[in-house]
């Protein structure tokens, strides 16, 4: 067994535990450097992870994949974690006592996501999933003096645990029917059996429901607006990006490797879910007055777009998912960093309070506009290229209707994205005082904006990596 394949995960664990121990050893007032320590540590791990492309091996006898697909998603998660921890330092400081623990839990959540994206077996998958979600339960309820936060935490826990239970029941049925928990062996056993038993169908439906909850697909989306609104904003950003991307990685691996022979059946299911998700996510986003709720519904809609790549079930579709996932990281974290800094200064998350933001802080307004327009898919921003990859992967597979829904709803989404921009640029500010943005957050804002514009104009570097990821999944 070659433990060096697990270097990235082991380094992440050591980082989390190291920061926890350092936090215990130094007095409370000196712990504020820990946030930067975590950012630097994660950035180093991200840098090291580039060396793992092209290995395409499995560890622990097929239980754990170290292929380009998992490395790509790990990098996506690490990018998200680096940006979130860098942007969050001031916000967390204002939140009160447990400063170091916030970052430790963030790293643990990232670790869970990494395991989830690499899992080649159900027990590993379940452990990754729970490491991620339990860390998120804690992070969601992290604001001690704000009971909205605790309430969001318990709601997330109840619904999250319920969905884990359903997913787990599905996993147990698949295990029982095939006699193995290794994903690639499930496919072999299913091919030997020839047909689907009723219990297997139930298991697959339960898996769809469980994963649907984690990626907040309609009709399993009811938790996400509440949790997004109540959670501390950096957590919301990480939750929207990381947990969704990791769940997509696991979903793709399970359905494309374990059930390729029955893709017609689950494609239908996912197509229906994707259509519902795109329509409802976008339509419900329109009347929202709280920007975090608006972004929550918009991220539900984004999950719908990404699902179209899963429906394609080929290398082109997976490339679309990987590419769009990475863009979505930058756009979402950019938008949430603006929300974070705005609320740290004004204490408000209401869209109407964003009036005249362009005059109070041109940077914040510009970044929010770019990020929202990228999510809407306006060329030349990155979101356009991503949607192009996604939709073109299913158009010739008989899912033209889904593409049309996606395009129509993207147009509808421009309306609510632009209405935020309109408030920021056209309306007069109630209060003229400029908004102070700390250096770390400023760096995150600039990075997200530049990357979003750059990848829209020149998507080549990212699409090469996304291609590698997709090809490693289909050999």
């Amino acid at each position, binding site marked *: 067994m070659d433990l060096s394949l697990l270097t990235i995960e082991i380094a992440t664990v050591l980082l989390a535990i190291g920061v926890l121990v350092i936090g215990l050893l130094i007095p409370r007032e000196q712990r504020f450097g820990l946030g930067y320590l975590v950012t630097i540590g994660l950035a180093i791990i991200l840098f090291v992870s580039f060396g793992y492309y092209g290995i395409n091996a499995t560890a622990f006898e097929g239980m754990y994949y170290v292929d380009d697909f998992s490395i790509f998603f790990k990098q996506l998660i690490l990018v998200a974690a680096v940006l979130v921890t860098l942007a969050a330092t001031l916000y967390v400081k204002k939140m009160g006592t447990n400063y170091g623990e916030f970052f430790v839990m963030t790293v643990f959540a990232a670790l869970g996501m990494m395991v989830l994206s690499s899992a080649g077996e*159900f*027990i590993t998958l*379940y*452990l990754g999933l*729970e490491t991620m979600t*339990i860390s998120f*339960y*804690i992070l969601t*309820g992290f604001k*001690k003096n704000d*009971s*909205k936060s*605790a*309430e*969001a*935490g*318990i*709601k997330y*826990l*109840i619904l999250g*645990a*319920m969905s*884990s*239970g*359903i997913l*787990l*029941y599905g996993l*147990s*049925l698949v*295990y*029982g029917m095939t*006699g*193995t*928990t290794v994903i690639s062996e499930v496919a072999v056993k299913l091919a030997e059996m020839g047909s689907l038993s009723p*219990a297997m169908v139930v298991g697959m439906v339960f898996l769809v429901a469980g994963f649907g909850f984690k990626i907040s697909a309609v009709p399993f989306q*009811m938790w996400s607006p*509440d949790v997004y*609104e*109540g959670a501390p904003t950096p957590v919301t950003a990480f939750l929207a990006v990381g947990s969704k991307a990791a769940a997509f990685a696991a979903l793709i691996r399970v359905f494309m490797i374990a059930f390729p022979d029955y893709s017609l059946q689950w494609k239908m299911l996912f197509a229906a879910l994707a259509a519902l998700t795109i329509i409802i996510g976008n339509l419900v986003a329109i009347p929202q007055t709280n920007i975090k709720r608006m972004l929550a519904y918009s991220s539900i809609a984004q999950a719908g777009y990404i699902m179209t790549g899963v429906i394609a079930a080929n290398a082109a579709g997976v490339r679309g998912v990987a590419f769009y996932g990475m863009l979505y990281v930058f756009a979402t974290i950019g938008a949430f960093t603006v929300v974070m800094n705005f609320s740290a200064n004004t204490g408000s998350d209401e869209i109407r309070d964003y009036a005249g933001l362009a005059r109070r802080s041109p940077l914040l307004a510009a970044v929010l506009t770019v990020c929202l327009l990228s999510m809407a898919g306006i060329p030349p921003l990155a979101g356009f290229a991503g949607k192009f990859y996604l939709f073109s992967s299913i158009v010739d597979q008989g899912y033209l209707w889904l593409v049309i829904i996606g395009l129509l709803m993207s147009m509808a989404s421009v309306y609510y994205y632009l209405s935020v921009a309109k408030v920021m640029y056209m309306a007069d500010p109630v209060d003229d005082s400029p908004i102070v943005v700390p250096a770390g957050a400023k760096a995150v804002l600039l990075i997200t904006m530049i990357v979003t514009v750059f990848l829209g104009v020149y998507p080549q570097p990212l699409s090469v990596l996304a291609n590698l990821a997709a090809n490693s999944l289909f050999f």
Partner: protein
Amino acid sequence: MIGLEHFLILSGTLFCIGLFGALAKRNAIAILMGLELMLNAVNINLVAFARYVTTGILTGHVFAIFVIAVAAAEVAVGLALIVAIYRDRISVNVDDFDWLKW
């Protein structure tokens, strides 16, 4: 003779009872108990499958052990959150958890 079906029926029933409890109960503690029932139903499934389908291979048992450990962690976090809310509102009734709209 007790066979695999009996265990599956038991676990299916237990799972439904747990799901019903989690959805219908108003007391947050009772909801957590419902969730535990769901996870234990899964454990019965896993152990039964390990016994009857893959006799001699302990994957199912190991899976069940991991589920037990994770469930404990989940419940610990859940109780901590419930206590945090209780200190604020003197209630564990989920109908009172209405500061965010559902």
